[in-house]
């Protein structure tokens, strides 16, 4: 089989799938990338059996064939000198010649039949399905992914909880110190229920699905989730764990509600955190009728910041981890930011004025 492909196109497509190639695997063919050419389109696939990425792109009329090439091809393609690349694959031993300009590579390919078939979700095995706008889904991921735990001892908190109900998808993430939930509108939703997706694999969704106007089709089976958008597909295994009931930890009544300018508040917290202690980054907040004072002290010195704010309800003193606050403020899109308070040693809820559905609950530090 012989193929001619524009080099920059192939290099760009390889970058997309390369993230799913495991650096080391018991199954040696997984350390490669599967090339499938069906005549006028080419599909590249990679998987580490937990995350799978594939991308299809149109090429000019070519021969039909398949091969697994070692993942070195990603770097080779980036550095080759010519405009086009010629791939010549020997169907007997899968030795593949890569020629571009003055440069020639011979790569030891693998038999493509050995590659694990990418998970197929058929009408019988599908449990949930829905369509969602890329822009909506990306926004929801940005609002939640950052508070997923990296601690492998708590597998349930390494995932993002998807709850599908009618035309609404709720995403929730937590690391046991804080919790973020948000909604996005979906359509053509089939079935209602919950499932847990590894956050690490969803980072790839943010990286790969960047065309904001497009729609993502999502299919979920018992074990897998499949997200496809135009020519790209991402599959991920689901987590086998129970996420705690989110509704139960969210307080329903408040003693006070304070709102302030998001940007000014963020800058003040950033300055205060410069002096906070490394481990828990404590900043102490004093909230009164028309202003919010934050104080920090450590062995290096003390600082005080004042931000104008509007409080409805009782005055309050509360200590919070400034890193948690800053991570939320960075993704906040509205001009204003609100905090709903329930007591000095009780959780408080941050809200974004632009997204009513978004909720970010932080546990205070007891002093």
């Amino acid at each position: 089989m012989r193929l001619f492909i524009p080099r920059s196109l192939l290099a760009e497509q390889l970058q997309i799938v390369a993230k799913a190639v495991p650096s080391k695997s018991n199954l040696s063919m997984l350390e490669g990338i599967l090339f499938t050419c069906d005549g006028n389109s080419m599909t590249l696939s990679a998987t580490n059996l937990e995350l799978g990425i594939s991308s299809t792109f149109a090429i000019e009329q070519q021969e039909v064939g398949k091969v697994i090439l070692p993942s070195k091809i990603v770097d080779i393609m980036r550095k080759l000198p010519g405009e086009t690349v010629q791939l010549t694959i020997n169907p007997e031993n899968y030795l593949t010649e890569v020629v571009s300009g003055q440069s020639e590579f011979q790569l030891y390919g693998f038999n493509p039949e050995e590659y694990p078939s990418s998970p197929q979700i058929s009408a019988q095995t599908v449990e949930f399905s829905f369509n969602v706008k890329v822009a909506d889904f990306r926004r929801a991921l940005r609002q939640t992914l950052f508070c997923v735990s990296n601690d492998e001892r708590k597998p349930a908190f390494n995932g993002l909880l998807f709850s599908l109900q009618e035309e609404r998808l709720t995403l929730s993430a937590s690391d046991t110190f804080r919790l973020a939930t948000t909604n996005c509108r979906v359509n053509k939703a089939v079935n209602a229920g919950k499932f847990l997706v590894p956050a690490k694999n969803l980072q790839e969704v943010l990286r790969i699905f960047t065309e904001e106007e497009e729609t993502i089709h999502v299919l979920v089976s018992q074990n897998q989730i499949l997200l496809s958008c135009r020519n790209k597909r991402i599959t991920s295994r689901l987590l086998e764990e129970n996420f705690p009931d989110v509704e139960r930890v969210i307080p329903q009544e408040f003693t006070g509600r304070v709102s302030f300018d998001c940007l000014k508040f963020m800058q003040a917290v950033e300055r205060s955190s410069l002096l906070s202690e490394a481990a828990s980054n404590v900043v102490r907040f004093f909230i009164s009728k028309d202003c919010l004072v934050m104080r920090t002290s450590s062995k290096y010195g003390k600082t005080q910041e004042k931000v104008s704010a509007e409080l409805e309800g009782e005055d309050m003193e509360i200590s919070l981890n400034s890193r948690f606050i800053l991570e939320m403020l960075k993704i906040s899109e509205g001009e204003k930011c609100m905090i709903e308070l329930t007591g000095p040693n009780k959780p408080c809820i941050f809200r974004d004025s632009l997204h009513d559905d978004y909720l970010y609950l932080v546990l205070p530090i007891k002093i």
Partner: protein
Amino acid sequence: MNWKDIHGRQEVFRVLRVALASGNVAHAYLFCGPEGIGKKTLAKALSAALVCQKSLEESCGSCSDCKQSKTSSHPDIHWIMPDGNKSLKISQTREIKRAAYFKPHEARYQVFIVERAETLTLEAANSLLVLLEDPPPRAVFILLASSPAALLPTVVSRCQLFQLPRLDAASLISILNAAERQLSLADLKRILHGAEGLPGRALLLAREGRQELYAEAVGLFGQLQSNEPITALADKLAADENLLLLLEALLTVLRDTMVLGSAGNSRLIMPVGEGVSLDCLLAKLSLANCMAAIEVILKLEKDLQSSVNVRLAVERALRRLKEVFENVDSSGGTL
């Protein structure tokens, strides 16, 4: 791998089959027995049955899952083994832990087979214990070990334990026949004699040829008596894949020497191949020397079961053997 392809383990199969058919699969199994008893074969059969699409009780052999498990490329069957001759590390059990909390890739279960579980370090065993205490619903663990005593009692108590007994001659013969080897009666006798009820060793002997091993063992004793440097010999032995088999052959040679020395009747020992003679050993070794040499080899066999530096253990044993042989010269005692 189908249940009926494995011979002489009917009791084990009955238990496993019932568990599989009723869906009451234990979350962890522990198969125990010496090297060559068939732990891996059994683990293969059980894991193939657990991931088969068509049949609940056993691997059907024809579905895509069974084909993949046959070639050890099934994405839901994970084999975990120590690197080289070292121990199973905590990083490996952490990796198991991470993977176990995923749902299976495509099968009903995902299976983790831990080979040589006796080499788990204390931290690794404790980390695995956490997983065995609170296992993910669709993960099955199969631990393979030489003996339950080599594992932490807390780990053993969380597994369904199968002590695999040695097989009788009839089962060994059917295993050898299934492997399609044309064996003469004399060969068969020799293999059964050497296999000691271990199917794995029987197959290895059938493949390796016992004659050559026996000759190699006699040759090795010859080399030890000459002035050849021990280090080169130790290098060669430590790299030998069939080291344990060779040690068995050494033991047989010593046994035969003792039998010949005390009874003088060559009909009591297995027929020695042509060109191999025990005369030289017979002339040099006393009964006590033979016993001392046997102890050295048994000690080495035991050492090799735990996590040791193979090269060092072999060299140490060779030096001890040489001492035994040199002792002969100084005392001058012969049989």
